[in-house]
């Protein structure tokens, strides 16, 4: 299994970032065009986020990231902006599953969530379970995802995974 290395600048958010602020319901009922929807990504917390975020950037947040509605549009708009990964102290379960299914890496690290500052550069190794913050000279270990989820991520999402395997292989 080979993953592209993840390395990017950090955007920091707090606890309980819900899917209504990641992508408000009023937009998502009108279109399936993720490019259009991505212009409103994180609008509820930072209306300029979609203009500021660059491909490869990493979101670092607190507890319960992605709570609320099951809308898969939430991880999709972040993926559309090119976000490389979301690091949080913890995730709400539906967002967590959705992120893996659309090929957006999500990983839990309480320490990295607490110590990382906005603008830091993080390097993430998904298979080894290591986050490095070179400037801060800090390194954090996290428990790598179960193999089926790494497989889905590595395929680029659930659609490609199922095309390849036909069904879930645990």
């Amino acid at each position, binding site marked *: 299994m080979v993953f592209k290395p993840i390395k990017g600048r950090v955007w920091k958010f707090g606890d309980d970032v*819900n899917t*209504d602020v990641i992508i*408000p319901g*009023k937009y998502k009922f009108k279109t399936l065009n993720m490019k259009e929807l991505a212009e409103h990504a994180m609008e509820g917390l930072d209306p300029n986020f979609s203009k500021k975020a660059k491909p490869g950037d990493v979101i670092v947040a607190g507890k319960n990231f992605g709570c609320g509605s099951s809308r898969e*549009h939430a991880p999709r708009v972040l993926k559309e902006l090119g976000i490389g990964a979301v690091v949080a102290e913890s995730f709400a379960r539906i967002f967590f599953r959705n992120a893996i299914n659309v090929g957006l890496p999500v990983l839990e690290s309480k320490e990295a969530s607490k110590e990382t500052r906005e603008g830091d550069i993080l390097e993430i190794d998904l298979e080894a379970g290591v986050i490095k913050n070179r400037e801060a000279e800090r390194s954090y270990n996290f428990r790598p995802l179960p193999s089926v989820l790494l497989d889905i991520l590595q395929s680029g999402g659930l659609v490609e995974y199922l095309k390849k395997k036909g069904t879930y292989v*645990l």
Partner: protein
Amino acid sequence: MGKTITEKILSRASGKNVEQGELVVAEVDLAMAHDGTAPLAIKMFREMGGELLWNAKKVILVIDHVAPSATEGTSSLHKLMRQFSAEQKIENFYDVGVGVCHQLMVEKHVEPGMVVVGADSHTCTYGALGAFSTGIGSTEVAAVFKTGKLWFKVPETLKINLDGEMPPHVTPKDVILYLIGQIGADGATYKAVEFSGEAVKHMSVDGRLTLCNMVVEMGAKNGLVEPDETTEKYILEKRRNFSKALKNDPDAEFVETREYDVSKIEPQIACPPTVDNVKPVKEVEGLDIHQVFLGSCTDGRVEDLKEAAEILAGKRISPHVRMIVVPASVNVYLEALEAGFIKTFLEAGCTLCNPGCGPCVGAHQGIPAPGEVVLSTSNRNFVGRMGCAEADIYLVSPKTAAVSALTGKITDPQGWRG
């Protein structure tokens, strides 16, 4: 070691003796999606090479979130659902105006012991009938449409014992808001939450649905009430199968058991901007309100409408308040009509909308203005939830909503003398 109901259902559906924490692939009994999630699911179903549904009888599609459509874009997504339903011969396709997906699922489809998934976070509601039901995303529901299977992590179960008698003016909504305030927005993440105790035993199915509906607001995977005579009566009235065998084993393992005495709970209110920001209503009494919403998958059922109608009977709401009432389904609407509640609402000055999600998701039927305060019987008060990021949303019971609509201010029904 004995098994919990959730473990028994997942054991049956995966064909193995499951353990807590294990990843299993289970057969799904019913899969649901609505107009907020089905269009993306249909697109993904096709992208993954889907041609025919694994079982068209087990798929339920509902147009309820923006129904009737408010924009051309939404209309096109609705059209996609209609075309897909016709092409796939989906008998259980509910078009505009039939009701909220979760209400239709419990009225028409769910049976105790089933594994049910839905592309909506409040799919956890059906645990009130003793099913294992949980929310997933569009691509996952597309995968279920194609294969009939899904992977699950077998959850630990948090047991919540509710004893004591509910005080007058305290409803199941107040109880679940109180519990969310105690447990926190992520306090039950990944867990099954099972409600038991005397207070649950005496609660109607409508009330149990309100409890299970909101377990996702504490992060839970599924809610659950052990099926009993009340469940049996509800299911049999609707001519579906009832399995009496579904009980927790006496030595089933619960990760934690919490005890609460409901007789000590007062009317509760979830203040913006999170559902776990819960206080007794009396602490925020007196705040001017502009819009009241009575309805949703949380509190749009007959019992909820009854509680509000009894308060509003023969009175007029404040001239400074708009009160929007949305029965959760056509069946609920007809029953409320028969009982005279609809007449009461209209005479009190309320606005009645067709069955559906109403203004809960902020796409139509009552988007507030900046600076306005909304009192809602729904389940989320996040920034922008109802379509305006500068409006404040407070979550309450149908009783608190009705009393406050009369006074034009947040009002505790316990202290109110109409």
